[in-house]
């Protein structure tokens, strides 16, 4: 039963303190939304969770052990990450990029096993990416590149998924598909943490919402409580009015 637990994480980047004592846990079977203003520290936090950034204070644990003590490939089999920027300067095809997601599972041997092929195909299907999987990624649109990147994370078959702004550049249909996919994965037992500005899309479907404010956790609760008007106004400086006839609408597929 692997969970990723952050405990009193503090990170200083340059002269600015980005995170102050942030504690957060993501376990299997839940979809957690991480939201906050620009510069609140969401991306930094995600990078600490996956071990790409060492915190100045506090600890990150994966499955009970400190993340840093995991061997990189074993950790990659448990924890997958989709960062905000996923551009690639060379002409790999989408399929080749998704195949890179199988790296944690592949040994010295060069060939792909049937498990690998199955995982790749499944990931492409879930992201509705078969149509453009064999084109060079440099010819794809931003949204298509994003979907390839998410497919790569899914192909790792990791139980825990961290995603940073995954719905960026995606059109409405594909954004909804992605959110629905993440919800399905959570229902199947994955632990999913999503940092996103897309509150309207995620709020109805997530199990918990965490608001980061000034580098600290402001609230960590079920979405209807966490995203109440007072909290939204305090964290985002925006009034949350009751839904009107026009916008926002609740979109479904």
């Amino acid at each position, binding site marked *: 039963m692997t969970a990723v637990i952050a405990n009193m994480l503090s990170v200083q980047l340059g002269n600015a303190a980005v995170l102050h004592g942030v504690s957060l846990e993501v376990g299997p079977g839940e979809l957690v939304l991480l939201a906050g203003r620009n510069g609140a520290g969401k991306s930094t936090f995600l990078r600490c969770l996956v071990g790409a950034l060492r915190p100045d204070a506090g600890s990150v644990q994966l499955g009970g052990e400190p993340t840093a003590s995991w061997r990189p490939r074993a950790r990659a089999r448990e924890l997958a990450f989709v960062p905000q*920027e996923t551009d690639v300067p060379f002409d790999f095809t989408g399929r080749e990029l998704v195949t890179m997601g199988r790296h944690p599972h592949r040994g010295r041997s060069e060939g792909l096993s049937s498990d690998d092929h199955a995982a790749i195909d499944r990931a492409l299907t879930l992201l509705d990416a078969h149509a453009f999987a064999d084109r060079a990624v440099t010819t794809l649109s931003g949204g298509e590149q994003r979907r390839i990147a998410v497919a790569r994370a899914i192909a790792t078959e990791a139980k825990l998924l961290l995603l940073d702004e995954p719905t960026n550049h995606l059109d409405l249909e594909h954004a909804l598909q992605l959110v629905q996919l993440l919800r399905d994965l959570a229902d199947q037992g994955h632990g999913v943490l999503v940092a996103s500005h897309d509150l309207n899309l995620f709020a109805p479907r997530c199990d918990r919402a965490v608001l980061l404010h000034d580098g600290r956790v402001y609230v960590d609760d079920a979405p209807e409580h966490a995203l109440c008007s007072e909290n939204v106004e305090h964290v985002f400086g925006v009034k949350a009015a009751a839904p009107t006839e026009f916008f926002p609408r609740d979109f479904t597929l």
Partner: protein
Amino acid sequence: MTRRLPLLLLFALIVAASLHLGFARERPGVGALLAWMFSWTGAFDAPDDADRFVLGMIRAPRLLVAVFGGGALALAGTVMQATFRNPLASPDIIGTAAGAAFGGALAIVFGWADLGVVVTPLMALAGAVGVTSLVFALAGAHGRFTVANLLLAGVALNTLFGALTSFVVTFAFDNYTASSRVLFWLMGGLDARTWQHAWITAGGFLLFSMLVWPRARELDLLTLRDDSAHSLGVDAQRARRTLVWWACGLTATTVANSGGIAFVGLVVPHLARLMVGPAHRVLLPTAALLGAVLMVASDLGCRVAPVGWNLRLGVVTAVAGAPYFLFLLARQRRGLAL
């Protein structure tokens, strides 16, 4: 087609190598070469001692330096472009070539080059390794360095050692022989290569390519951003440092034996990528073969060019490489990908 391309290139290399051995202004020519190769059948006479000496002791080592040197430079360029996530990276940017040029120039100007055939290559190697270490030392802070810092340090040291090389050359101004030797060294050339040069070049290529080859998949992953690579189990920082050192090794052992050769490390990976795509499992051998073919063909051009031109290898590769970049620029302007 893509899978068979390396084989085609291998065939092209064999043809180019045969021409390189056999095609020359003086005897022995292709006939003598063929006669020697098939003399064991008894149908042909083996060529005489003088021809055998020229083929075996002069042309053969020169050919081997061209083959392994060209392959090494192309491999180094491919590795650099992957680790720096930039199709314009080349082995020159971290100061390896500038250091090698400086070391070789020192050896020639102060006369140590005359003490032995291996003195110039060894001093060039020392210069290359020294300058690259300096670049890493300047760029690294607490063991972690950014690509930007590495590039800045590389530019700074390239400039510094370029100036120091010029300074060393001014000591040789009045000594015509030394200054012309340094100039020819800086422009690159494969004349009068001995078997010692060939051993060093071949050894360097084999050693470092064996270190790079198993990491082909890792090179693919390094083209992703560091965070993505990290999440897939690759320590991008450490991998980058190690692979850049292997690229430096490949470059240093080549430039130490051939002087400064431009463009092979920059252009050949591009061409190879155009031919077989960016996956390193196929790209690395393709680039190595293509680099070898290019180097052998360029050296052949140098040897059969009119004598008065004094054509240097580095000049030929630069002249061949520049139009390719103009072509890339034209593609850029039309909005196509680099």
